């Protein structure tokens, strides 16, 4: 191999490389197994899990916008028990970090999921989704003010020694305030950004296109906005950061790493090219090798210099 050290630490976890795949865009991993060996990834982040199954929002659930994708899936998922029964057996066979994205309508919902999975072998960490813009019960009230965020994270911290990643919303004046509160309550790491609230209107009928009216914007359109949020948080927080938002290729990934992300996560790009994340794993290695970078970690935060 090239001899480049791609390993990174995210909270209590060491990833073999900094490339993750984002919640809601990679299913439970198996959906992509035909296309490449997903053990090549640094890790995978599952679709959000809630205690009970959720049917999700009425269609249409997605609409394309310039260089972006609006979605209002509404946290459709099979629920905690079905997840353990149907998805965990496969996840346990993986030789890559498995991070479960957790969502809920109440503190208790989050606690239920984390408690149940805390002792599961195949789960390496949790991404606490307090930033879903698409459902009233999507935890967004925990994501917009510091106090509820801290209270929630504190409760979850008591449930598990596994890595707790708090996923931040960009739809607030200052995500760093939420991060600071969560850090104080025991968060190990942060991931950002979740989608930006947006909408599209049918120009003939004048009505919202999405069944849910409002959705969250992802994809290349939001990359500059996401980069700024990562840059800003990394100025203030010493915790690990997983950067995401519009990462489609190696150059995009490096932008986030330079902005201060310890790891990056590929979302919408998985829908466009199923092998996008693997291409970035290989691309980062080639990027470092070509420039004599021995450790990808040395690039983190260079934009701050």
């Amino acid at each position, binding site marked *: 191999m090239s001899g480049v050290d791609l390993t990174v630490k995210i909270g209590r976890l060491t990833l073999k490389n900094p490339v993750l795949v984002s919640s*809601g*865009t*990679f*299913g439970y991993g198996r*959906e*992509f197994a*035909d*296309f490449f060996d997903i053990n090549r990834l640094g890790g995978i982040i599952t*679709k959000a899990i809630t205690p009970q199954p959720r*049917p*999700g929002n*009425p*269609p*249409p*659930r*997605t*609409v*394309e916008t*310039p*260089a*972006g*994708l609006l*979605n209002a*899936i509404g946290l*459709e998922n099979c629920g905690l028990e079905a997840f353990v029964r149907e998805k965990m057996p496969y996840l346990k066979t993986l030789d890559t970090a498995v991070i479960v994205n957790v969502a809920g309508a109440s503190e208790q919902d989050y606690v239920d999921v984390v408690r149940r999975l805390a002792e599961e072998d195949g789960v390496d960490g949790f991404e606490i989704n307090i930033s879903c813009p698409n459902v009233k019960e999507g935890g967004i009230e925990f994501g917009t003010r510091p106090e509820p965020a801290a209270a929630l994270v504190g409760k979850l911290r008591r449930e598990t020694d596994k890595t707790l990643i708090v996923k931040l919303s960009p739809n607030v004046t200052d995500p760093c305030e939420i991060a600071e509160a969560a850090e104080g309550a025991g968060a190990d790491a942060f991931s950002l950004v979740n989608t930006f609230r947006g909408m599209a209107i049918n120009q003939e009928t004048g009505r919202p296109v999405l069944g849910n009216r409002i959705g969250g914007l992802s*994809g*290349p*359109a939001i990359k500059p906005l996401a980069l700024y949020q990562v840059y800003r948080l990394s100025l203030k927080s010493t915790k690990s950061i997983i950067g995401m938002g519009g990462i*489609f290729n190696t150059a995009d990934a490096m932008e986030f790493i330079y902005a201060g992300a310890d790891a990056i996560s590929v979302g*919408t790009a*998985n*829908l*466009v*090219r*199923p*092998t996008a994340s693997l291409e970035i794993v290989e691309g980062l290695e080639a990027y470092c090798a070509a420039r004599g970078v021995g450790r990808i970690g040395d690039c983190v935060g260079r934009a701050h210099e």
Partner: protein
Amino acid sequence: MKYFLKAKVRENTVLSEGWHALRIECPEIAASASPGQFVQLRAWEGASPLLARPIGVAGVPAAGEILLWVQRVGDGTRLITGLKAGDAISVTGPLGRGFTMPAAGETVYFAAGCVGAAPLRFVAERQQAGVKSIFFYGAGTQCDTVAPLADPVISGMEVVVTTDDGTCGEKGFVTDALRSALKNKKPDRILACGPMGMLRAVAALAAEAGVKCEVSMESHMGCGLGACNGCVVSVKDGTGKKYAHVCTDGPVFDSDYIDWEAF
């Protein structure tokens, strides 16, 4: 097994205004695709359009290649129909659940609206001897009937054509022709693909006649792989399930599974 391939266009023929037949070299997909399944296509760099476009497989005209019928409606299909022989195209597939193949001795009615003829053409191409079938085909006007009527597979069958304006075949909807036919003889199954309004009408006719019916549904597709939950349609079943994924549960569904009132 699903594949994500950088494939090559072998031929792109204009069958009628805005309706193209593309033959694409992708042996793995050609070898495993079954009628009713689809592929996701992307033939451009950059972010617009962002997502790949779903297109049904219309046949396997020669070893190693698939046939697609693509109608130009927006940017994605404009780029796809603009390809030349030798151009590269990414193809993901084969995807989804296809049609139930008619068994020997069965009678099947195909109900196709416009470019919805594509996946039904593939059923016909694969159809075994001893199946009796009628191909009901509806379009707006004459020029949209050129492609299917000139096709060797479709024109080898009994075909009933309707057009909204009467410029080809009977004037009226494909469901008018289907309704008359159902009065004469009930098939074992109706297989339908076309615009939503037509599918709903076909489903209603089938239910009324007590004939099994399968419909190929469309929706805004994200991943095409069952991973993003973006492509749902409303369904009704005993278990209280509300939505099904077009990309993996479908695109072909039993017509009485679809919640037609939700559209």
